[in-house]
């Protein structure tokens, strides 16, 4: 195996599992460390620069970082990264707007149109406004936020939190055109914008049109996302006592919990496949179960049952999981007779679809057979060079943080495009390595890693929250609990850097390493090396760091998998061949060289 090239910023970036897993690559350990130092506003700004909506994401993010968190591999549960983000948002200095980038009064003469006021478009605006672009933002709703406003229930995301962070961007001088639905791409193209960004989401909820009784039961059957929007905008104020929610994703969880708040006393979630295969985040499933909502898995809907013109229930067949040709589990009928569940209303949360009825077939934009725009995944540019897509509109339904990541990339592309540069010649990430040693066993970061269980987030009493859909359930960490949780972070951005020429092979690092990560052995292929290390190195996604050879001809091989970044290797190294260096990786943004 060749020595690891630690000059390549992506190597150490990958070691920071949380940041690497985050679509927007937020420097998670950096802001968690700031929280542990009670620098909440600084922590907020680290987030804001990277993911634009810290207060919102601190409540409703899909958290791809948490399953990746190294703490979850050395202990039962990962660091509560998402809730710490909320902590810094809750405790930030509200006067922080003076830290936002200045908006040039003299514009650069380029006009950009953003279609849809969701997270992707808002991110594009946030990135391009400071560069002097003139931006027109169009949305059919009366306010900004997109599906964050229309579909996320207030008990998870209070409206003022959303409004504040959306307004941070709109207040930069974005020309908003709310209550303005774009009906024709060709008309828009004719307006002479230098670039157009489409961030219209995946606005159409899937239906089950072919199930018997669908039409007759019309009054009592709703499309989940439309129903949620109806609740949020005040058109829907009540629901029947017995509600069946069909679907196993996060929308289903929002639907069932909202139904409980509107008078549904017997709410059930019906899932076609197995519980373990559900798409909803585990914590959202838990929250639903905590509100007395049973999740009934292995039940596929077959019929809406209508009596005297009214919906009275649904029939399901039991399913069991059968592996298909590709080895994936599919729900198949178990061959028993249908089961009847009575209900007053049904909410369908069985997926979302993209829909671009306003883009004419001859507008010059190619679509895939699945109805998605043909895009270069790196630049997000469509077949019509000045039209870009992002968010759910680009590759189908994902999540907010992915939309933000798309927004950043689209902003880079639009900026390069407007400056007449190649879209493939993208700016590099900003990186910095900084030594952490202060003195003998004195480090710039908290390296005393202890076994600490994940702190629970306090919640309002169920009896209260079920009565008022506007009451936020989670109260968020207070500063003290948040501090304890922030110290669970293993500082994976503080890298172990090894310099073979200084090593005297005393084995001190090998001996002291609590996790048996470090080895001095004869070189081999990576596959073969993995079989010879002190501790099993079976997680192929986790890199081996190879350096050397050292004087005896052996090489240093470190399995990054469960390294605690505790600094003991550097502390016990007599020659400073090991160093602890903080690696700050900031993803490139528009306008950077």
């Amino acid at each position: 195996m060749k020595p690891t090239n630690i000059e390549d910023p992506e190597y150490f970036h990958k070691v920071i599992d949380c940041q690497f897993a985050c679509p927007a690559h937020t420097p998670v350990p950096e802001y968690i460390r700031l929280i542990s130092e009670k620098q909440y506003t600084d922590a907020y700004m680290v987030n804001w620069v990277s993911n634009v909506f810290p207060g919102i994401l601190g409540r409703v993010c899909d958290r791809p970082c948490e399953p990746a968190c190294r703490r979850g591999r050395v202990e039962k549960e990962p660091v509560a990264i998402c809730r710490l983000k909320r902590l810094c948002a809750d405790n930030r200095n509200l006067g922080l707007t003076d830290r936002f980038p200045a908006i040039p009064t003299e514009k650069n003469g380029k006009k950009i149109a953003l279609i849809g006021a969701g997270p992707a478009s808002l991110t594009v605006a946030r990135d391009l406004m400071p560069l002097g672009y003139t931006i027109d933002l169009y949305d059919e709703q009366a306010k900004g936020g997109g599906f964050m406003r229309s579909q996320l229930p207030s008990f998870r995301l209070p409206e003022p939190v959303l409004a504040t962070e959306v307004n941070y961007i709109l207040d930069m001088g974005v020309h908003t055109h709310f209550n303005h639905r774009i009906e024709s791409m060709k008309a828009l193209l004719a307006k002479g914008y230098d670039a157009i960004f489409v961030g219209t989401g995946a606005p159409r909820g899937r239906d089950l049109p072919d199930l018997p009784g669908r039409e007759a039961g019309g009054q009592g059957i709703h499309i989940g996302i439309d129903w949620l929007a109806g609740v949020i905008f005040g058109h829907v104020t009540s629901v029947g006592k017995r509600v069946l929610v069909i679907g196993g994703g996060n929308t289903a969880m929002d639907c069932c919990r909202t139904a409980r708040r509107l008078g549904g006393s017997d709410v059930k979630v019906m899932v076609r496949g197995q519980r373990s295969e559900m798409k909803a985040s585990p914590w959202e499933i838990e929250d639903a179960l905590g509100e007395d909502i049973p999740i009934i898995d292995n039940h596929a809907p077959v019929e809406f049952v209508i009596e005297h013109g009214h919906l009275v229930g649904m029939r399901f067949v039991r399913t069991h999981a059968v592996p298909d040709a590709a080895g994936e589990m599919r729900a198949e009928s178990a061959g028993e007779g249908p089961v009847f569940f009575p209900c007053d209303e049904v909410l369908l949360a069985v997926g979302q679809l993209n829909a671009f009825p306003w883009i004419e077939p001859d507008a010059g934009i190619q679509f895939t057979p699945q109805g998605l725009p043909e895009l270069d995944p790196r630049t997000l540019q469509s077949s019509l060079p000045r039209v870009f897509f992002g968010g759910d509109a680009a590759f189908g339904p994902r999540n907010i943080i992915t939309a933000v990541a798309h927004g950043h990339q689209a902003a880079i592309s639009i900026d390069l495009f407007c400056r007449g540069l190649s879209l493939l010649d993208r700016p590099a990430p900003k990186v910095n390595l900084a030594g952490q040693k202060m003195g003998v066993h004195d480090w710039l970061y908290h390296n005393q890693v202890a076994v600490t269980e994940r702190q629970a987030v306090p919640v309002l009493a169920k009896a209260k929250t079920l009565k008022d859909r506007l009451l936020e359930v989670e109260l968020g960490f207070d500063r003290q609990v948040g501090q304890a949780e922030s110290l669970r972070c293993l500082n994976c951005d503080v890298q172990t850097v090894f310099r073979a020429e200084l090593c005297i092979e005393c084995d001190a690092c090998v001996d002291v390493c609590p996790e048996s990560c470090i080895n001095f052995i004869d070189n081999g292929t990576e596959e073969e090396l993995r079989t010879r290390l002190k501790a099993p190195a079976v997680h192929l996604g986790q890199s081996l760091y190879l350096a050397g050879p050292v004087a005896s001809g052996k090489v240093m091989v470190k399995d990054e998998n469960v390294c605690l970044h505790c600094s003991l290797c550097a502390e016990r190294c007599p020659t400073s061949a090991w160093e602890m260096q903080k690696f700050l990786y900031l993803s490139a943004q528009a306008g950077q060289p």
Partner: protein
Amino acid sequence: MTFFRPTFRHPELPPNAAGYRRQDYEGGISTLCAGCGHDSICNAIIQACFELALPPHRVVKMSGIGCSSKSPAYFLAKSHGFNSVHGRMPSIATGANMANRDLIYLGVSGDGDTASIGMGQFMHAVRRNLDMLYIVMNNGCYGLTKGQYSATADKGSKSKKGGINELESIDLCELAIQLGAGFVARSFSGDKQQLVPLIKAGLAHKGLSFIDVISPCVTFNNNPESTKSYHWVREHSEATNTFDLVPFQQTITAEYDGDTVQEVALHDNSVIHLHKHHDAPDITDRRQAIDNLEDHKAQGVILTGVLYINPDSADTHEILHTCERPLNSLAEADLCPDGQILEAINAAHR
């Protein structure tokens, strides 16, 4: 000095045959200088005990005074221990061994503790062939008093300050072979691949097992001209052989090419398989072993590995014909039998 070590251990490391985890053999955090060879030896002891699946509470660790002798605090925290007066560890170990022969005795000493103040104690413990593993962490200097040469420093070796050692050095391995130790080996703290199996074999051998481990003092004796530096030892050492210890429960599976194999069966039916060149000396021959040591010394080479084994050596208890039961388990009734027994003994002499 490090004062905090996380308690996390690699989640996928399996336990040993007795169900213990490696951390069950660990001790406190080392207070030795960063890079000290002694830390490496401590870890080799931990590894060897872990691999042998010794119950930690059956081990007694003994030491005297010095950097080496404080190291038992850094391994086997769940074992018995005694930190004796300077150089007197062999006497304390003898007493303990007399009281309870069923335990496993591990003595840790340094070159000062053994070759200077404790020389007489060491020699007589070897003569008695006390059933213990005696490890010397040999750095050729007095680390606790700023690095003066010890009695094992090689003649001609140069210290960090530039002074040359003019005195003859004591070769503890040669002495141990001469005085009747049944298992004698030399190793290097920076070579765990060799050291761990040596410690395992030393623990399996009945009678006195002696391992002299060259253990560089990073603070006072690790300059390139010192013959006890990491650099020098790596450049100037030659192994007698490579070997595996096959504990008696296991069957032999490994096959090596090219070398001849010498098998030495130990008291507990463990087997040492030595892989060596066909013209290498026989390690069960005392005279050949000493010649071999001297030959290599003359070439300026440090000979490491198993130097000598006498699988038939008799330990103190055999020599003294003590009873099979540990002496500490003998109660008054055992020690002061009634008159009938006396009668029987007297009758036997009539």
